[in-house]
C-alpha cells in the first residue's frame, strides 16, 4: 500500500510541476504588454509616464529576463506569494481569490451534491421502467446536453424578466452591504437560486442518465441473472446493482468537486456572480497574468487533491482495488 501511494504521490508532484509551468507560460503568450494597459487606463502626463512605467515594470518583475521571472515565480509560490493583481492593483491575488471562493462553494457545492444525489437516485429508479424511460429520460438528455450558459439565459429571462420572481445579477442586492440579518440572507438566497437552478438541472440530467445506463448494465451481468434465477426479490438485486453502479459515479463526483472553485465559469458570467469563474474572465480580458495564474493554480490543486481523494476512496469502497493492491487473488 505504501508503494502504491508513494508512486501516486510522485506522479502527482510531476503533474503539479508541469501544470503550474504551463499555467505560468500561457498568459505570457497573450499579445500586448499588461503594464501598457495600466498606463493607458491611468491617463498620465507623458513626461511623468516614463517614470511610472518603469516603476510598474519593476513592481511586477517584468524588468528581468523571462527565465528569471520563471524562477522568481516558483520561489514566490513557495513563500505563499501569488503576486499582485494587475487589474485590481495593488490588491494581492490571494486576497482577491479568497474573497471569491466562498461564492463558488456556496453555489457549486449544493448544486453538485444535490444533483449527484438526486440524479443517481432518479437514474436508478428510472432504469428499466418503461414509462419513466420514455418520458423523463429524454428530458434528462436534453438537460445534460444543454449549455449551462444557454439554460442560464433562459432562466434569467423567464424568472427574472418575464415573471420577475428572482433577480439575475450579482450575489445580493446592491442596496445592501454584507451583514447578518434576515434581509441580507434572503437577498443572498434569492440571488443564489437561478444560478443554482441552472447548474443543478444540467448536472442532474448527466448523473441520472449515467446512473440509469450503469444500472441496466449491472442488471445484465451474471451475478444479477444468478440472483434472479435464485428467486431473489427485485429490490435486493437492484440494491446490489446500485452498489456496483455507484463506483464510476463517485469518480465523477470527485472530479466535479475538484473543479469546484471554477466549475461554474459561464454560469457566473451570465449571472454576474462574483466567484472565481467571473475572475478568470476578467483576468483574461484585462491581461492580468497573476490573477489568471492564481485562479488556475487553485484549479490545479483542486483537481489533484480530488484525484488523490479518488484513489484513497476507491481503496475504501471497492474491495477489488484493495485486494488487487495487496496482491491477493
Amino acid at each position, binding site marked *: 500500500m505504501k508503494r502504491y501511494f508513494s508512486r501516486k504521490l510522485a506522479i502527482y508532484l510531476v503533474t503539479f510541476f508541469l501544470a503550474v509551468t504551463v499555467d505560468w507560460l500561457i498568459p505570457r503568450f497573450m*499579445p500586448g504588454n499588461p503594464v501598457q494597459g495600466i498606463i493607458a487606463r*491611468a*491617463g498620465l502626463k507623458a513626461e511623468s509616464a516614463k517614470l511610472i512605467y518603469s516603476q510598474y515594470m519593476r*513592481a511586477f518583475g517584468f524588468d528581468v529576463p523571462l527565465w528569471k521571472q520563471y524562477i522568481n515565480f516558483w520561489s514566490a509560490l513557495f513563500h505563499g506569494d501569488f503576486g499582485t493583481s494587475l*487589474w485590481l492593483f495593488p*490588491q494581492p491575488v490571494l486576497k482577491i481569490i479568497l474573497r471569491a471562493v466562498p461564492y463558488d462553494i456556496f453555489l457549486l457545492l449544493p448544486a453538485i451534491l444535490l444533483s449527484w444525489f438526486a440524479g443517481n437516485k432518479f437514474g436508478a429508479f428510472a432504469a428499466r421502467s418503461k414509462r419513466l424511460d420514455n418520458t423523463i429520460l429524454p428530458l434528462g438528455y436534453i438537460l445534460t446536453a444543454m449549455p449551462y450558459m444557454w439554460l442560464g439565459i433562459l432562466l434569467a429571462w423567464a424568472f427574472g424578466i418575464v415573471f420577475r420572481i428572482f433577480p439575475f445579477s450579482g*450575489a445580493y442586492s446592491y442596496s445592501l452591504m454584507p451583514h447578518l440579518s434576515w434581509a441580507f440572507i434572503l437577498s443572498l438566497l434569492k440571488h443564489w437560486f437561478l444560478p443554482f437552478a441552472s447548474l443543478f438541472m444540467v448536472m442532474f440530467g448527466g448523473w441520472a442518465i449515467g446512473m440509469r445506463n450503469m444500472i441496466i448494465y449491472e442488471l445484465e451481468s451474471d451475478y444479477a441473472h444468478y440472483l434472479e434465477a435464485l428467486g431473489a426479490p427485485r429490490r435486493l438485486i437492484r440494491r446490489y446493482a446500485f452498489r456496483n453502479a455507484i463506483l464510476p459515479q463517485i469518480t465523477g463526483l470527485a472530479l466535479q468537486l475538484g473543479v469546484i472553485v471554477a466549475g461554474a465559469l459561464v454560469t457566473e458570467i451570465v449571472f454576474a456572480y462574483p466567484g472565481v469563474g467571473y475572475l478568470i474572465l476578467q483576468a483574461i480580458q484585462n491581461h492580468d497574468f497573476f490573477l489568471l495564474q492564481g485562479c488556475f493554480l487553485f484549479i490545479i490543486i483542486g483537481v489533484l487533491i480530488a484525484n488523490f481523494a479518488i484513489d484513497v476512496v476507491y481503496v475504501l469502497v471497492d474491495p477489488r482495488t484493495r485486494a488487487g493492491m495487496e496482491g491477493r487473488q
Partner: protein
Amino acid sequence: MWRSKSKVAICILLATLVVSGLAAVLVQGQSFERSETLYTGGKQWGPVSNWNPLMTGNYATGTLGLCYETLFLYDPLTDEFMPWLAESGKWVSSTQYEIKMRPGLTWSDGEALTAADVVFTFTLGKTAALNFSSLWDWLDSVTQVGDYVDFVFKEPLYQEWANYLYTVPILPEHIWASRTPIEVATGANDKPIGSGAYLYYGYDQTKMVWVRNDNWWAIKALGYSVAPKYIVDLVNTSNENSLGLVLQGSEDLNNNYLPGISNLIQGGYGLVTYYPGPPYHLPANTAWLDINLQKKPLDDLAFRKALACAIDVNDIVTRDYGNMVEAANATGLLPVWDKYVDQAVVDKLGLSYNPEQAKKFLADAGYKDTNGDGFVEAPDGAKIALKIIVPNGWSDWMAAIQIISNGAQAVGIDLEPSYPDFNGYLDARLNGTFDLAIDNQSQISNSPWSYYHFVFYDKLADIPSTQGGNYGRYNNQQAFDLVTQLDKVPVDDLAGMKAICSKLQTIQLTDLPIIPLWYNGAWAQMSSRYWTNWPSSAEGGDHYFPVTWNGYWNMTSILMLVNLEPAQ
C-alpha cells in the same frame, strides 16, 4: 447501511458548508435609505481596489473629488478656476506663483489642513514616481510662508501649471509622511482620510459607498452642503444591465455609453440628459483617426486628403450614434476651446466629406486601379490593402469604422475594419504597427495645449512607455517647437495663445497628421425619480458636468451634488 450513513453525512456536510459559506460573506454592514442615497455607475469597471488619489488609473470612484480635494476647481464650460482649498492664487512675478490657503480647513480626522500639507504633497513628486513628478523638471522650490505657499519656477510652463492646480490631490502630511515612496505611489491607502464632502464608508465586490461628511469645510466657508447622505457607486457589469437599472430608476446617474437614449428620454422613464435634444451630452474628448505616417501610402499627403474626403462623419453621427454626438471641427479642438479655432485657417484648409474630390485627389496623385479589382493601386503599381482598428467590444466605434471603411471603399481605397482586443489595439498603436486607428486619448482640460501636446508629441522614441500621443509618428520640429512655446504662454494672454494655436492649425490642416471625426460625449443619463435639479443646459440651470469619471469631480461635478434635491 452505506447509503443511509452517507445520506446523513452528505446532509451534514451540505448544511455546514452552506452555513459557513454564508458566514464567510457576512461581515458588518447595512442597507441604505433610498431617499438619502445617490446611486451612480459608469466609472468602475471592476471591484474597487484602492483609494490612492495618486494612482490616477484605478482608484475608487470619487477618491479624488469626494474624499481628496484640489487647490482649485476648473470649470471647462466657463473656462474659470474656482478657489477650493486655496482661497486665492496668483503669479506674483513671472517665475513665482503664490497661493493663499483658505483658513479653517480640516481633515476628516480633525487635524488641520494647512499650507504645510500643500508643500508636503508637491514635494512628494520629487521622491515618488507620480503623475506630477515631471513638474520638478521646471519647478525650483515650494515653501510655506504662514498661510501662503510659494512656488518658484526655473522656467514656468504656465499652461501646464494651471492644470496641476486642479488635478493634484492635497494629502495629509501627518498620515502620508511615514510612507515609503513606493507606498505613496502604489499603496492601496485603505480607509482614506481626506478633506472632502464625503467620508469612506465601505465597499464590497459590487460597489463603493461614501457617506456625507457633516464637518466638511465648505459648509461654513461657502455655504455648500451636499444633498445625498450616501453615494453608492456600482461596479459596471454590462451596458444592458446599466440600462435596465437606469430605466427602473434604481441607478440615479449613469455614465456609460447607452445607445438609444435619445428615444428613451421621451419614453416616460423620467430620464434626463444635459441637453434635452441632440447631442444630449456634453463633449468630453475628440475621436480622431490616427494615421500611421511610417507606412505607404499613408505617408503621401494626397492619399490622406483623399481619405479625409471619403469619410462621411455625419453618417456616423446620425446612424451610428443617433445624434448623441456632434461632428468635430476640422481642427479637432473641443467646443470648450472654440475661441482658439482660427476660422480663416479652417475655411481655407479644412476638408469635408466629398467623394468626388477624394477620387480626384487619388487620380491626380497617380493612384489608379490597374488590376481591375475595384481598388486603386499606388502610382508605382504596389497593391494597397489597409486595416482600420478599434478595440473589440466598443460597439459604437466598431460601427463607426464600418462606415469609414465603406466610405473609403466607395472612392476606391481598399480599407477593412478590424477589431483586436484592447491590449492588441493598444500594442499596435504604441509600437506603430497599425495602419489606421480611432483614438480619443486626449481629454478635455484647461488648455488646448494638452490637445496639441498630444497630437504633436515630440518624443517619438518614447511613445511605447509614455503613451504621450502622436501614434502616427508625425515628425515636424516646427510644430513641436510651437507646442513648447504654447506651454510658456501665460494663461491670461489669450491673444498669445490664439496666435500659436493658429499656426498649429495651419500645420495640422496642411499636413493632416490626424483626421478629427466627432466629439465623444461625457455620457450622463440621469433619473429624476429620487433626485432632481440635475445639471442641464437650460437657462438658469446648473451648467456642471454630471460625470463621476476620474478627473471630473474637480471639473464641477462636485457642485452637482451641492445642487441636487430629493424628489419628494
